[in-house]
């Protein structure tokens, strides 16, 4: 095309665009606040006024040469590209365009009916899936190449399958949904489960230690000589204790029984029924007796005689017990609970355990407990201590520490802050050692052995002396993010690394005498299953402490669960009072962007900008840290509902679903993910609460799958129970039309939510 070289007046639109960008860039030089679309538009209007009243009449009468026009156009192009290069990313983030992209992908997946939630399937684990197919009353489920399995129709097009790999066959990423008139293929995020050895128990005299891997249903037997043996046991082993020279007792998450197991002859001796969701188990120091902490619908502690195989007492509790230890003579039991975040003591009175009235409140949950039978005191690790029980509400407050608790005096004797400064610090307030104490073992010589998952260390602490660093990042021999530690006697000890799926045995000179990988090592994994390697790296990164002394796991404790604690992460105040957020569980959040309670992050990887800025980054430099953490988080399936073990009440669930739809809960908590991934302003739902938030936030609609496993509820955790969400915190009847429900319907609704 020929360009006529005649003189012409400048195009006023082009002039306006150029001047607008110049004006905008000048304003940005004054303040970064003006890096926004509204300022750009204001600049345009300002420029248009200049053009309309002054420049337009002048320029339209003044023809200029083609050469000059080309120079001006080129200049404007430079300004356009320069502005995009300098401010494009910020505009994308500020205006929510990034969230738009990720949310659209995830929404599209859920809106492509029939759709499935949650999006992740892990091999070898029981899981519940919801399928939404509004046109069908009957849907069958089939993994590619597997059997056709029926689903339960709950009503309103919502179907459910409680998938059990042992009965239903192996899982894979392709699912065929058989509808009455067609077969539809859907993809899931398939994760192959790897062994995760965590906490250990040991008998130093015999030089033996035990651990379990709930992901791969294995019992691990570790010998002082460095021999490490693995045997297959029941579904989801959660803990193990040593009973005698040949027998251990194993507790289970997904079995109703505990096992008495002969580890010498690899023989199951006895199954004793106590109920599912057993969290931890403790052995009486003298008697043939164990106590099991059982979470779930009816939390309790079961006391079992291991000789008569009888359950001698079931202690029903209001709190869900987690860790459990016997007192020095076995006449008391101590258990920790996450809600409230406290330790409780039960005293044996006339052979019956009764609750000692005064709990020891911590403010943050107990991460781990030392378990030396017969010891008059024990140690706990936690991320913050506030004796009043209220969550410590300093901004991003995390203070890793060990507390020494006397069972008899029932008080905290000592507090030891573990996070320390190192010579690698780049800033006066940085820390680089003692991050995330994860495993505690009291050795025979009353020396405390502690693993630090955040800083890849092992310490030995003797009384009030300064701690001795037994192992550090260089000498730990690849046992990254160590969890469990066991004293094997004679100065030998064993360390586990769940993320690596490895166990190492060290001698008294701290030399690693053996290491056993229960899964492939990194090099083999890189070739065989790169995603698995990314997940593994992500898990390690998740536990790694930032230079500011906190890590992802500081709040998302117990492998991505919620610490059920309030945190000040925004510094929002109402009448001087901090408005906190409670931690959400990370389990099952794959493909539900955006993230966090206020939908402020488009992806999990995006959170790295907080870690790298506010938390001052990490000592260890790695590539793709955020992406790897995202891979790991996306590999976590939701917590299994206790009703899967106890037995479903389909009739009541169907009634609950009817109430759910009647109250129009499904308009935001839509099927099948029980969220439409939408965001709302607080005033639309909770006018009173909105006044306290000064309109500065937005609610992300959370998924309700596995709701009952992460109390307290609502944005700031003000509802302690599902019942109180409607009873106390829906006075304006905007968070669901629950006022039209009868009492029975409301109870059915609560039951339905509990059963998700």
């Amino acid at each position, binding site marked *: 095309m020929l360009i006529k070289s005649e003189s012409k007046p400048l195009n*006023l*639109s082009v002039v*306006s665009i150029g001047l607008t960008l110049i004006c905008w860039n000048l304003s940005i030089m004054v303040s970064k606040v003006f890096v926004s*679309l*509204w300022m750009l*538009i204001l600049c*345009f*209007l300002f420029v*248009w006024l200049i*053009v*309309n*009243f002054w420049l*337009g*009449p002048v320029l339209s009468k003044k023809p200029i040469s083609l050469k000059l026009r080309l120079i001006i156009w080129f200049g404007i192009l430079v300004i356009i590209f320069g502005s995009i290069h300098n401010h494009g990313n910020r505009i994308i983030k*500020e*205006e*929510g*365009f990034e*969230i*738009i992209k990720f949310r*659209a992908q995830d*929404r*599209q997946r859920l*809106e492509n009916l029939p759709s499935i939630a949650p999006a992740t399937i892990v091999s070898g684990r029981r899981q519940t899936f919801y399928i939404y197919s509004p046109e069908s009353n009957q849907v069958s489920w089939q993994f590619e190449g597997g059997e056709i399995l029926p689903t339960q129709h709950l009503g309103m097009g919502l179907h459910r399958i409680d998938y059990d790999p042992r009965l239903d066959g192996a899982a894979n990423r392709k699912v065929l949904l058989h509808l009455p008139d067609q077969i539809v293929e859907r993809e899931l995020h398939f994760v192959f489960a790897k062994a995760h050895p965590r906490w250990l128990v040991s008998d130093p005299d015999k030089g033996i230690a035990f651990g379990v891997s709930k992901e791969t249903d294995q019992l691990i037997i570790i010998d002082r000589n460095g021999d490490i043996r693995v045997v297959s046991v029941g579904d989801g082993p959660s803990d193990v204790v040593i009973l005698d020279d040949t027998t251990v007792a194993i507790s289970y998450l997904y079995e109703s029984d505990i096992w008495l197991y002969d580890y010498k002859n690899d023989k199951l001796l006895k199954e004793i029924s106590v109920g599912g969701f057993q969290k931890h188990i403790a052995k009486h120091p003298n008697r043939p007796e164990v106590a099991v902490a059982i979470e779930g619908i009816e939390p309790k502690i079961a006391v079992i005689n291991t000789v008569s195989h009888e359950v001698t007492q079931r202690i029903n509790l209001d709190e869900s017990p987690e860790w459990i230890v016997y007192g020095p003579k076995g006449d008391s039991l101590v258990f920790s609970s996450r809600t409230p975040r406290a330790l409780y003591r039960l005293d044996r009175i006339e052979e019956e355990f009764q609750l000692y009235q005064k709990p020891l409140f911590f403010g943050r949950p107990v991460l781990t407990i030392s378990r030396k039978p017969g010891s008059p005191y024990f140690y706990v690790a936690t991320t913050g201590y506030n004796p009043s029980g209220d969550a410590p509400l300093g901004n991003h407050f995390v203070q890793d520490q060990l507390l020494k608790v006397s069972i008899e005096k029932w008080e905290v004797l000592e507090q030891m802050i573990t996070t320390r400064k190192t010579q690698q610090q780049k800033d006066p307030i940085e820390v680089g050692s003692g991050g995330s104490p994860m495993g505690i073992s009291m050795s025979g010589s009353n020396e405390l052995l502690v693993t630090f998952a955040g800083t890849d260390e092992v310490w030995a602490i003797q009384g009030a002396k300064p701690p001795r660093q037994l192992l550090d990042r260089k000498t730990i021999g690849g046992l990254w993010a160590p969890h469990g530690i066991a004293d094997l006697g004679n100065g030998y000890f064993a360390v586990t690394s769940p993320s690596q799926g490895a166990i190492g045995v060290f001698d008294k000179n701290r030399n690693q005498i053996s290491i056993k990988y229960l899964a492939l090592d990194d090099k083999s994994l890189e070739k065989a299953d790169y995603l698995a390697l990314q997940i593994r790296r992500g898990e390690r990164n998740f536990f790694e402490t930032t230079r500011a002394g906190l890590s992802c796991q500081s709040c998302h404790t117990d492998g991505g669960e919620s610490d059920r604690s309030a945190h000040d992460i925004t510094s929002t105040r109402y009448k001087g009072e901090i408005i906190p957020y409670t931690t959400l569980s990370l389990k099952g959040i794959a493909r539900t962007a955006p993230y966090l309670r206020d939908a402020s992050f488009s992806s999990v990887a995006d959170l790295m900008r907080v870690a790298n800025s506010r938390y001052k980054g990490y000592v260890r430099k790695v590539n793709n840290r955020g992406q790897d953490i995202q891979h790991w988080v996306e590999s976590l399936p939701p917590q299994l509902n206790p009703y899967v073990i106890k037995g479903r009440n389909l009739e009541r669930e169907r009634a609950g679903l009817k109430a759910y739809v009647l109250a*129009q809960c499904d*308009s*935001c908590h839509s099927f099948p993910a029980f969220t*439409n991934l*939408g*965001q*709302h*302003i*607080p*005033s*639309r*739902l909770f*006018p009173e609460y*909105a*006044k306290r938030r*000064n*309109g*500065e*936030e*937005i609610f992300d*609609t959370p998924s309700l799958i596995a709701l009952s496993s992460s109390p307290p509820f609502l944005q700031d955790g003000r509802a302690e129970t599902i019942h109180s969400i409607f009873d106390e915190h829906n006075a304006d*009847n*905007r968070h669901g*039309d629950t006022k*039209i429900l009868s009492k029975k319907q409301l109870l059915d609704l609560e039951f339905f939510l509990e059963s998700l």
Partner: protein
Amino acid sequence: MTRVLALKIAFRVCFTLFILAIIYIISFGSVEEWSVTRNSWLVRSVGYAALISFALSFSITPLNKLTSFFGRKAPQAILLAFRRAFGIGAACFAIIHAGFVIYLQLESNWSVFIHLPFFRAGLISLFLLLVLLITSFPAMLKLFRVKYWRNLHQLVFVIGIMIIQHVWLSAFVPAWVVLAMLISYSILVLLRFIPKVPVKKK
């Protein structure tokens, strides 16, 4: 057809549609018993009406170009009259939409317009639509001594993007609707680059 007649027809048709839409929205909304659904229906349906009006107004110029590209002469006067009428309709619906949001949902929570991109995009779109509304009448152009209204009305491209952003960030709009909007907007913008082909007189 004369320009004045075309304007009259377009005004009457669009005004009738506007009134019918408002009657439909209010009558259907009043059936809802639960205040949240009722308010939500009012807000969203008026918002959709504004969106449709804007889309119709925005698509007239490229369609006009497309018809001329294929050698057909479109009735210019009536098309331009409808473009203006739909644009005015979009601004009017947007005002009502904003009124409903403020009255029924915001509860004096004004800071959302500063903090939340969803509301900010809506507010900017409304503001720009109002600017275009005011400058859509010859009397106003005279009053404000506006000479270069065409340059100002190029803000429709910005409004289009802001509306897509506003809709995309909203809680309830299905992904396919927003995707369709984005594709339509892109096509309509690209169609504007079709060179004008002079229609030969027979």
